[in-house]
């Protein structure tokens, strides 16, 4: 089918912006339901303790309290993303495993009463020894956090391709380094909130989430309510960045309270609770050994990576693997070994993150620059030498069907005058590059695909119904834009119903970078189904062939004789008359090897396609304070085709903050299981004044499978911006970083070491 790209590819205002700029867009904490109660949660003060007893009787007697719950009110069902990681009961009855873990909760007529009632819940604990460092946690004799996981090793991913040891021995140059990074905070602007309303057997829920269907399914299992009676509704989301994909204790708590009280319940977390008791980001220690040939070809990689997972599995196997995959999807590795260990500690639960893996990825890229220098190459040449191309397969056997990697490298290098600057750094100024690939989807079993329905009303306007989720990145608008192109009607004529488990069919959610490629393809397929029906009637009425009919601006017309035309609305009515209303349906399931498993079989097609990107950062170091300034940042991303270039730019620009500037300032700071900066003052989210001059470039590799050639819209920058900064540090100082973030004290130490070496 030939499209003229009337609207796809244009910079269009997003469909959701008007409600947001006028203050009427609703988020979970804005909801008010009749009779709604306020919930508050009692949390563990211990990092590790046995629960001996929970007494809620006195709390129930506080006037205005309508329900009190603890783990003893559940069915003891343990949830997990995978069958083999089912370790989380939402509210536990055996142990608490991190400070801030949910233990009990109340629902009362107002917040004051709820807070007061918490003081009347008595919990008896037996404090246990706790462990906070992942390396300590793996040692013999460390306190065991979960019975099922000896040495607190939650997940071990082992990948072995080719003959690593042999290749290392034959390498011209070998280098091994260890890199560390503290885990970040998602710091999304919306603190977590849930509204649950249980009435007549139906449980309705609203919460910011990346996938309502997996929530509903999890809650159905946890609460033993049939799936059709658990309805997760659409609500605006104030940012997720990977941290709101899974069912949370708050969902379970609000549901139980609503069931018990018979009234709607709203639970809103404070910023501190959001930081401590919802998902955090993994701390990582990455040991990277690389062997190269004299011509710069990487012939061997040997990895050992430790992920500090906190107290429960969460997306365990996925988090333990992703940094490796986004890297092996970018470069050619004929021999590679990866041992990734996710380890439990008595800290908050770590999940998948849009910027996940900075120690590993920045370490790889900065080390590559060092190796390049050692063998007389530069960062551009060595990346082009090893960068994958269309038609090739990754080390773990994913075929690449479109690849703009080299174009992103060239474009970023050109715009930044990279080679010129890299070869002549000054003592305190440097330039660096970072590349990465992103899989557009993960193997998610039967949830890997998306489906869409389309209905047209008798005025020729449409409603599209899709499970796709928007967490702020512009997915909803993108679907409307695609539908507009295919149906030939303007965006304002198209309504969207999405992310509602009662109405919309399965979709992978705003998770695994699948919205454009999978969700978009399903919307396109459904709209093409409707389009076919429209065109069939138009061809008949205009007495021409179906091939000759085009749809644009609410009209169907003959391409060869545009005077022959009729409004789409007439066609819709005609279809009703014929007893065959225009109804579109379509699905898209990406080509993924469903035998692939993160731990047991980490080989096979990972995703339908991959995006590619390159970041370049220029840094400047203040020699007396060690403070790094980042005056310029250039990002180039191959998204196949940008459906809305403005939205893709927005993703890249946001990534430069969240991954790039974050490199010099973002970290969660711990003291014996206590999070020292669970707030937005001491956790440093970069502000406008901290941002560099930014230039972005979009590369169109026109993916053969993606809708209009589209792939995911910008996540590469979230996973390579820190590499550019780390590489720039190497360029300026000749030294590899040891630990992220690159706070000024670390830079001063690094420069002192350099000085000592020079003397």
């Amino acid at each position, binding site marked *: 089918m030939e499209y003229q790209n009337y609207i796809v590819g244009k910079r269009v205002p997003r469909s959701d912006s008007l409600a947001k700029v006028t203050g009427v867009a609703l988020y979970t904490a804005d909801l008010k339901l009749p009779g709604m109660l306020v919930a508050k949660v009692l949390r563990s003060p211990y990092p590790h303790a046995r629960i001996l007893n929970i007494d809620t009787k006195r709390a129930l007697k506080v006037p205005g309290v309508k329900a009190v719950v603890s783990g003893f009110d559940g069915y003891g069902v343990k949830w997990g993303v995978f069958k083999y990681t089912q370790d989380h009961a939402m509210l536990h009855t055996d142990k608490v495993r991190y400070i801030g873990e949910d233990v009990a909760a109340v629902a009362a007529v107002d917040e004051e009463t709820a807070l007061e009632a918490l003081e009347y819940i008595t919990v008896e604990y037996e404090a246990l020894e706790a462990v906070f460092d992942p390396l300590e946690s793996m040692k013999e004799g460390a306190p065991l956090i979960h019975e099922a996981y000896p040495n607190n090793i939650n997940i071990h991913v082992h990948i072995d391709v080719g003959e690593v040891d042999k290749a290392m021995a034959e390498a011209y140059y070998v280098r091994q380094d260890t890199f560390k990074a503290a885990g970040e905070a998602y710091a999304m602007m919306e603190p977590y909130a849930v509204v649950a309303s249980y009435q007549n057997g139906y449980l309705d829920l609203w919460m910011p989430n990346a996938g309502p269907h997996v929530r509903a399914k999890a809650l159905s299992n946890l609460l033993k309510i049939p799936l059709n009676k658990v309805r997760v509704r659409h609500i605006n989301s104030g940012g997720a960045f990977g941290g709101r994909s899974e069912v949370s204790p708050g969902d379970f708590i609000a549901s139980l309270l609503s069931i018990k009280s018979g009234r709607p319940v709203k639970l809103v977390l404070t910023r501190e609770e959001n930081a401590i008791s919802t998902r955090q980001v993994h701390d990582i220690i990455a040991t990277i050994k690389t062997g190269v040939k004299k011509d710069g070809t990487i012939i061997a990689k040997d990895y050992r990576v430790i992920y500090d997972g906190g107290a429960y599995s969460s997306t365990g196997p996925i988090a333990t693997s992703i940094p490796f995959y986004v890297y092996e999807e970018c470069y050619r590795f004929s021999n590679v070994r990866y041992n990734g260990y996710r380890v439990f500690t008595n800290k908050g639960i770590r999940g998948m993150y849009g910027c996940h893996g900075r120690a590993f990825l920045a370490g790889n890229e900065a080390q590559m620059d060092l190796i390049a220098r050692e063998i007389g190459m530069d960062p551009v040449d060595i990346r082009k030498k090893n960068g994958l191309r269309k038609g090739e397969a990754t080390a773990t056997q994913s075929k690449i069907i479109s690849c703009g990697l080299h174009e992103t490298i060239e474009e970023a290098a050109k715009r930044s005058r990279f080679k010129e600057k890299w070869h002549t750094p000054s003592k305190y100024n440097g330039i660096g590059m970072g590349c990465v690939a992103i899989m557009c989807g993960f193997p998610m079993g039967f949830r890997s695909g998306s489906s869409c329905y389309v209905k047209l009303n008798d005025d020729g306007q449409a409603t599209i119904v899709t499970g796709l989720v928007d967490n702020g990145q*512009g997915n909803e608008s993108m679907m409307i834009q695609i539908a507009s192109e295919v149906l030939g009607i303007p965006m304002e004529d198209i309504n969207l119903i999405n992310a509602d488990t009662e109405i919309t069919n399965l979709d992978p959610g705003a998770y695994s970078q699948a919205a454009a490629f999978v969700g978009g393809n399903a919307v396109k397929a459904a709209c093409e189904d409707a389009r076919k029906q429209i065109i069939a009637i138009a061809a008949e009425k205009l007495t021409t062939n179906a091939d000759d009919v085009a749809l644009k601006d609410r009209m169907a017309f003959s391409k060869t004789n545009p005077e022959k035309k009729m409004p789409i609305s007439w066609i819709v009515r005609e279809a009703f008359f014929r007893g065959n209303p225009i109804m579109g349906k379509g699905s898209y399931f990406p080509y993924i090897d469903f035998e692939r498993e993160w731990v047991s079989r980490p080989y096979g097609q990972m995703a339908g396609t991959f995006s590619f990107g390159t970041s370049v950062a220029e840094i400047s170091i203040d020699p007396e304070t060690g403070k790094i300034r980042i005056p310029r940042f250039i990002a180039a991303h191959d998204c196949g085709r940008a459906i809305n270039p403005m939205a893709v730019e927005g993703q890249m620009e946001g990534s430069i903050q969240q991954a790039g500037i974050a490199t010099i300032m973002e970290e969660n700071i711990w003291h014996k299981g206590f999070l020292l900066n669970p707030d937005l003052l001491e956790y440093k989210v970069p502000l406008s004044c901290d941002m560099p001059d930014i230039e972005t470039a979009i590369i169109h590799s026109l993916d053969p499978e993606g809708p209009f050639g589209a792939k995911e819209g910008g996540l590469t920058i979230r996973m390579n911006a820190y590499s550019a900064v780390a590489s720039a540090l190497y360029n300026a100082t000749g030294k590899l970083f040891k630990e992220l973030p690159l706070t000024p004290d670390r830079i001063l130490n690094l420069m002192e070491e350099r000085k000592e070496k020079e003397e």
Partner: protein
Amino acid sequence: MKTVKVKFTVNNDKVTLQVKPYETLLETLRERLSLTGAKEACSLGACGACTVILNGIPVRSCLILTPEVDGMKITTIEGLKKGEKLHPLQKAFIEKGAVQCGFCTSGMIMTAKTLLDRNPKPKKEDIVRAISSNTCRCTGYKKIVEAIEAAATE
């Protein structure tokens, strides 16, 4: 504890309320007046998502006790458009793609409005200085600055 009477103007509407003496302006706006555009993101005045305009000045409404605003004039995001006509900032934020998740948007626009009211032709550094009072996690601020620049020319 006894409630106190407070009279003030919100978006040109005169209101008289009985509030708890320890109620914050943010609570009053969101819970009593259903003006949920101002958001609670940090509760401690660090992020600016709760920013409203109080007698012409941008303030963190989460740090103000409602009785403090007796006799004063408040503007919230809901009060910016005139009928169906959007304020130039609202129009520019939409057109320049400066809105992603939208949670910081209301506070960001209110801060920007006070800047333009006081300095109709701001330089880029004035804009950056003003909006460095507000935290955004999605946009990287670039399109927000561009939107304010565009609104200033209108």
